[in-house]
């Protein structure tokens, strides 16, 4: 479908989808942790709005519940928790500058093109309007992975992991009218538990190597050298 043939609600879904990718790119280029978490919260809120719109367009009211869950968990609860962790551990003044941000960004656009090519056959399968965004959701997943690869801070890894989960959830919403409620509740709960566990892990990592820089984990050895 060309965009001019869609209703404004459907156009708004496409617009929000592209904004979600933009937040992924912003996360890639962000060197301060608090801002990283803030952008993650924005991504969660955008995802919740998209889900609510999709509920209206696809006429599947159970998506409203998913939207509400996403908003409370990924838009509000987890970001606040991460923020508190960062403030508690005194990481909010740390700057992690990427050696070459432009190269990472261009790698990111390469990933977007790649996911477009991979998803092209799937898009052709079905006339579902929102299916064009499946490439976008896959790009969000890959960009989350790129974020985890390029960073050394454990907190940034967690944000990357959560944004991978955002991408998967987005794919489920736009391509299959959302997952069954049981699965969705289960995943939401898992994410919540994961966030809590990560918090515990942060303290463990820090107490063993006195930093959250995961590069230093390379020095840990089973045997004495």
């Amino acid at each position: 479908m060309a965009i001019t043939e869609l209703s404004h609600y459907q156009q708004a879904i496409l617009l929000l989808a592209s904004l979600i990718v933009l937040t992924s790119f912003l996360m890639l280029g962000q060197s301060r942790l608090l801002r990283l978490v803030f952008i993650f919260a924005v991504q969660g809120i955008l995802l919740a709005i998209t889900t609510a719109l999709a509920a209206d367009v696809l006429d599947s009211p159970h998506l409203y519940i998913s939207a509400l869950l996403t908003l409370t968990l990924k838009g509000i609860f987890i970001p606040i928790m991460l923020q508190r962790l960062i403030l508690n551990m005194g990481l909010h003044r740390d700057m992690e500058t990427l050696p070459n941000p432009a190269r990472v960004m261009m790698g990111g656009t390469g990933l977007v093109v790649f996911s477009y090519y991979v998803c092209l056959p799937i898009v052709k399968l079905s006339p579902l309007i929102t299916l064009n965004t499946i490439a976008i959701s896959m790009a969000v997943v890959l960009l989350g992975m790129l974020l985890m690869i390029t960073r050394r801070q454990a907190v940034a890894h967690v944000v990357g992991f959560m944004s991978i989960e955002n991408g998967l959830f987005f794919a489920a919403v736009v391509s299959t009218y959302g997952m069954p409620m049981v699965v969705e509740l289960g995943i939401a709960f898992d994410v919540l538990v994961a966030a809590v566990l990560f918090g515990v892990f942060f303290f463990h990592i820090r107490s063993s190597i006195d930093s959250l820089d995961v590069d230093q984990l390379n020095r840990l050895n089973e045997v004495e050298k």
Partner: protein
Amino acid sequence: MAWLLALLQTLLFIASAPLLAGWLKKVKCRLQNRRAPSLFQPYRDLRKLWRKEPIVAHPASWIFKAAPYIVLSTTVLAASIVPLIAVNLPTAKIADVVVLIGFFALGRFFLALAGMDIGTAFGGMGSSREMTVSALAEPAMLMAVFTLAMSASTTNLSVAMNYVLHTGLVLRPSFVFAMLGMMLVAVAETGRIPVDNPTTHLELTMIHEAMILEYSGRYLGMIEWASQIKLMLYGVLIVNIFFPWGIAQNFSLQALGFGALALTLKLAALTVVLGLSEVLFAKMRIFRVQEFLSFAYLLSLLGMLSHIILEVRH
């Protein structure tokens, strides 16, 4: 008749450019709790510069004296291409956006030459910086233009505006990205605050001002006027491409009047946004400018990708 109208539109364009600069100054002063000069202050400054005798350094060659004329005339030609209050004018039909960018490049080339002509250290430094910034800004600008061209299937501004007018309100992701990219490019190209400070007196941080440090009198007036026209050009490009509603589609007096009114309101609003961003952000270090412009390029590129991925029929 249409040619006359095109001529009048260009004259209106170059005559109202200082007014926009005055309005921008007013907005900024208001935001910084200062007393603003009158809206017409830029006209008075230009008149004062025009009356003064230009003083030219001894080693200056003909390039130094010719550059202000070339800069001003290329900018005026560029202004004649851009539809201001009416589309379908003959001048807009004979040249497209690529020509527009070419005019900018020509003017910039001579300005950079003039900066180096006298042989002062600051002039050469300014020229080198200006060329660095523009080499990074131009790809982003072209990419934003191509994004627009892919939607409208044309690089002609007038046709593209007609296309946007006729399809009505469509929430295009690509246009949002292209607009953001173009805004960043506009900030860099017109030398506004995060990239360059137009009111600075510290030579080491200058970009545009360093090139024109040796100019005085009439020559300086021409260059100042050209940079005011350039600021307005970018503003008009942004508001008329992405929000063309209100622009006159026929040449009746009523439509033209309404077009002028709509354009004034849109430009005034855009200038408030620019003023706000100038007050909120500090000037970047010169080495951060390439990050800023690569972000602009990224936005334009994302605009093109989102056009291909989301907006076309597969």
